[in-house]
């Protein structure tokens, strides 16, 4: 029973973090066809900024997470303006720029801090115990924060003017521009939003797990998998595929051993794509 409850929480937490990171990645990918391979590094650097603010500057953890989120959102604007916008339409160059930024950020963090074991402090101490089941407030809080954010992002994309403009651009960029939508401004906003969410997820996961210069690599792969499984153009689909992948990642290690457990989620992804190449909710080409 305890294992079931623990696994359910693992599913929910992992899913919410994957969705947070993947949404940011999806904004740019769906809207402008930009494969932002620096997204994992943004997630990682966000976590380390949060850590540095808390440990070196003595900032309150909540304030540190907010500042890290805002800083990386600003970095996202710079990324879009100077690293992606000049190469819009040139897929190869965008990929190389993303790879370059990822390597530079990763190497810088590894060189400066890579040998130290770091984690953000727990946001809440203590446990909620009911019967033999025990769940830490830390895990509950991370899930709740992730869930609230996802609801807010979902509301923003569906109900606000800017969110609808993002959807319009992802459906037809030329048509959106002709309609008077400032594509560059909306793209910058999307990148800021995506980077901010990735940084926030980095801080939360840095508190839930630990920080590592390479923590972004795996998260980038998860984001890519989610976006492809959901289907090009589908933002809502990411919520569904996030739950599926989070579930597989949380359950497979419990049922299977070691490397087999690691491979199972990707086997499922490959099978799904073989059967349905456009993903669950993707548009026909």
């Amino acid at each position, binding site marked *: 029973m*305890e294992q079931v409850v623990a696994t359910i929480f*693992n599913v929910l937490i992992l899913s919410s973090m994957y969705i947070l990171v993947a949404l940011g990645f999806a904004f740019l990918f769906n809207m402008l066809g930009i494969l932002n391979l620096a997204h994992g590094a943004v997630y990682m650097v966000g976590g380390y900024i949060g850590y540095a603010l808390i440990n070196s500057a003595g900032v309150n953890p909540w304030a540190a997470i907010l500042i890290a989120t805002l800083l990386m959102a600003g970095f996202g604007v710079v990324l879009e303006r100077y690293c992606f916008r*000049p190469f819009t339409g040139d897929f190869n160059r965008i990929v190389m720029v993303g790879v370059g930024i990822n390597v530079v950020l990763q190497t810088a963090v*590894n060189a400066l801090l890579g040998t130290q074991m770091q984690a953000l402090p727990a946001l809440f*101490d203590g446990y909620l115990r009911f019967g033999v089941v*025990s769940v830490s407030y*830390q895990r509950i809080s991370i899930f709740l924060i992730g869930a609230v954010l996802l609801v807010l992002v979902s509301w923003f994309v569906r109900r606000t003017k800017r969110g609808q403009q993002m959807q319009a651009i992802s459906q037809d960029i030329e048509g959106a521009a002709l309609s008077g939508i400032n594509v560059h401004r909306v793209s910058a906003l999307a990148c800021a939003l995506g980077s901010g969410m990735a940084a926030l997820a980095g801080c939360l996961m840095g508190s839930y*797990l630990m920080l590592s210069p390479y*923590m972004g690599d795996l998260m980038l792969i998860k984001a890519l998998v989610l976006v492809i499984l959901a289907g090009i153009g589908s933002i809502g689909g990411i919520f569904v595929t996030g739950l599926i992948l989070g579930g597989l990642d949380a359950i497979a290690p419990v049922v299977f051993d070691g490397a087999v457990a690691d491979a199972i989620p990707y086997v499922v992804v490959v099978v799904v794509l073989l059967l349905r190449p456009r993903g669950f909710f993707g548009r026909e080409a």
Partner: protein
Amino acid sequence: MRKSYWVVLGLVLALVLGVFAAACGEDEATTTTAGGTETTAGGTETTTGTAKTLTIGVPIGLTGWISAQDIVAAEELKIVAELINEDGGITVGEQQYTIELVMEDTQSDFDGCAAAVNKLVFDNKVQYIVGANAMFNTVVSPICNENKVLQSAVYSVLQPGEVDATTPYTFLTSNGFVGRSMASIASLKEYYPDAKNVAVVLVDDGGIPYMTPIVKNFLGAQGVTIAGDEIVGFANELQDFSPIGAKLDAIGEVDAVLHITGIISHVASLVKSYRELGNETVPYVTALLANCGDIYKVAGEIAADGIFSNAATPGDPENPPMMAELIKRLQAKLGEDTAVYLEYANSLVVLVNAIEMAQSTDPTEIAKYWETEVDTIETLFGTGSMGGEQTHGIANHAVAHPMCMQMMKDGEQVPAGWVDIGQIP
């Protein structure tokens, strides 16, 4: 478009320069990096007719998931090489040798490790290798033995072809998981004498079928059984250990958890995940060179007590002189809070002593002498004994040295005494 291009280029260049400025810092002038290679001459010049240079290759993870540990290990190696050279280097016959280390980055994966070892053996033409760490020995050992390169292995996961009857040139010189686990259980028993039923967890890199009978054997000899009669494995690259914590918790009531293989990030994450499920008082014993303080940093208050590891504690009065000096220089270079690992450094010390004992620089002669004539050998941790026939299927290829233990007690990292395990079975 053109202006933006130059702006981007300028940004990238600035970032790159910034990285190099931060990374180079106050490094010695003798250290160079190019495509993952580092060379150090230990501050001694080579002159014909006086001291010659003995080049030792080191495949080590300077990037990737194991770099958090191996970057520190690389610094420890450089310091030990300096200490050995300051002490006169190696003397074979009338000839003195200074040590030169050539490090190649394994990039924390098998392909990178193979490339690194091949470069050392075929390009750098080394005759001696120290390394590698973790399960990478499965790659290093066959290459060394095919090319008659003497290997001082840092670790073994007991896979065929690592340290066995087919590897006459490979010697496991840093206790390995068997020796460390034996020391950890001995230490656990000292503080928790009634501990009998122990959950066992380790990295599942394909070695569990080979390791299980060995683990059952040495645990049984110490009066301990594996809880649930099954070892719990996890993937090396796993980041979220919550499912593994849940799996361990599902075993039920245990007297302790023994974490046999992995790196410190695995331990810290799993301690957190396991103890958060209501297992705060279950002792967590690692057979890793993982600073308890670092585990506490990541896991938090939940790891304030009952954590054991095989790690040297700076300032422990029982630390042998060379170890104490190494730690002192390491802290001066990397800061007081630096982790201390010592396994690579120890393997270098043992290799150097083996060369001096054999009084030869020929790898084949040294290997033969080591296997047949050496019963005890000096290590960084004290006097070590040769053994390992039952575990590895080859006699006298595994060093068992005294093991320093560390523990967390009331939020403080403290020495937990030294354990002499005798011989690797």
